[in-house]
């Protein structure tokens, strides 16, 4: 094992960076929805600014991946790990973008009060965050069983999305003036639904890292699926 001490340390640091990025993204997701719920414009602006930090982290990970490939010429499971980290960092960046989008929606809604107190949207955010957190755990532990089980929870997020959709349509039908805000809120929910989809992609990378197989973990037959 001694022969690889430095390389193993470099691989560990790379994965630590990825975990740090995931943690930033988890916070952004929850905070963005919370700032929308509380109508806290200043907070939303800070979240939007912080997305820059997430993107910088992604670039740093990409640079480290390229450096490792060039210096170490990784093979087999090392190569799969490094390729997966790059892919996961890309997925995390996109989830960060969804969080930023939700913060922006808060600004776009402006001074109007919310049509209704937000309940399902924060539930979606918490569900997506929890899925992301466990997906990262599955990757770090190389736990394929956990990685396979998480995408099944995507149905719950889809169901919440359908619920939000139906509710907002009712608001629009009852008063067409609600159209604009309902549309914004639907877009926020859509962002969360997409965030959960990207967690599935991360789980696929865990399977790839462990087994070398590229498989889709999507559940095609969602109970409730508007897409």
């Amino acid at each position, binding site marked *: *094992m001694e*022969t*690889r001490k430095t*390389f193993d340390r470099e691989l560990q640091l790379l994965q630590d960076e990825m975990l740090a990025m995931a943690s930033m993204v988890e916070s952004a997701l929850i905070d963005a929805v919370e700032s929308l719920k509380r109508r806290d414009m200043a907070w939303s602006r800070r979240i939007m600014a912080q997305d820059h930090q997430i993107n910088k982290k992604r670039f740093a990970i990409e640079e480290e991946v390229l450096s490792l490939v060039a210096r170490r*010429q*990784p*093979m*087999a*499971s*090392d*190569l*799969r790990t490094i390729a997966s980290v790059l892919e996961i960092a890309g997925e995390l960046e996109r989830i960060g973008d969804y969080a930023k989008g939700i913060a922006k929606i808060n600004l776009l809604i402006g001074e109007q009060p919310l049509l209704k107190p937000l309940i399902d949207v924060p539930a979606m955010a918490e569900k997506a965050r929890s899925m992301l957190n466990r997906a990262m755990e599955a990757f770090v532990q190389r736990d394929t069983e956990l990685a396979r089980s998480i995408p099944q929870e995507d149905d719950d997020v889809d169901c919440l999305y359908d619920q939000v959709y139906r509710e907002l349509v009712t608001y629009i039908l009852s008063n067409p003036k609600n159209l604009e805000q309902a549309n914004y809120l639907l877009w926020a929910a859509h962002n969360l639904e997409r965030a959960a989809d990207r967690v599935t992609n991360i789980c696929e990378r865990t399977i790839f890292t462990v*087994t*070398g197989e590229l498989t889709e973990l999507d559940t095609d037959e969602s109970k409730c699926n508007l897409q």
Partner: protein
Amino acid sequence: MTAEEIKLETRNYSMYYGNFKALENITVQIPAKQVTAIIGPSGCGKSTFLRTFNRMNDLIPGARIDGKVIMEDQDIFAMDVVDLRRRVGMVFQRPNPFPKSIFDNVSYGPRVNGIKDRNTLMEIVERSLRGAALWDEVKDDLNKSGLALSGGQQQRLCIARALAVEPDIILMDEPASALDPIATLRIEELIRVLKENYTIVIVTHNMQQAARVSDYTTFFYTDESRTGQLVEFGETRQIFTNPSDQRTEDYITGRFG
């Protein structure tokens, strides 16, 4: 792999130096007109295995074998060894041109085989030097000593010398390990071109080189007994991205060896 695609084959092949068993029970099929790399830690029997195919191990006192080595349905140990070595050329780690002119180096084999006509020899020399991607660099000075060439050129001269007797198979024992990176890349490019017409078996310590140049990879391993065993044979792409055996994984990722 279908039968007609197999050029070389070993069946339950074991090899001994006196009482020492150097290779144990190797069964492998080497596909025709493909590059097969042999990798493994030092002392695992890679070169011994390679030298089986032109019976160079016969020269070592006390060497004996069990099992069969087949080249196109013929048992190589039942073949005339001179004929076998004409059909199975070899290139070594250190370029070893004869202390003769470039022309004489390349025409040596054909001359030994009885070709005397100067024009025929000239044709063979040109064709072989072109085949080894050396012609353009030496065509104006074929009388220059082979030893006056650079290391990379000398190695290509040795490849031209092997091609001159029109072999079917070329064995390469770490052919680029004594060369600089550019000369190494030239040899690797050449291997890619040569495989259109020849079956190539290459021993290399350089994992990236094996991954770059070969179509199939054979991983040899040895334990305290120092007897070489075949652990895994497969498509190079699979061996280097997702090997089946943990020992292959550990070796190619530098966990031992």
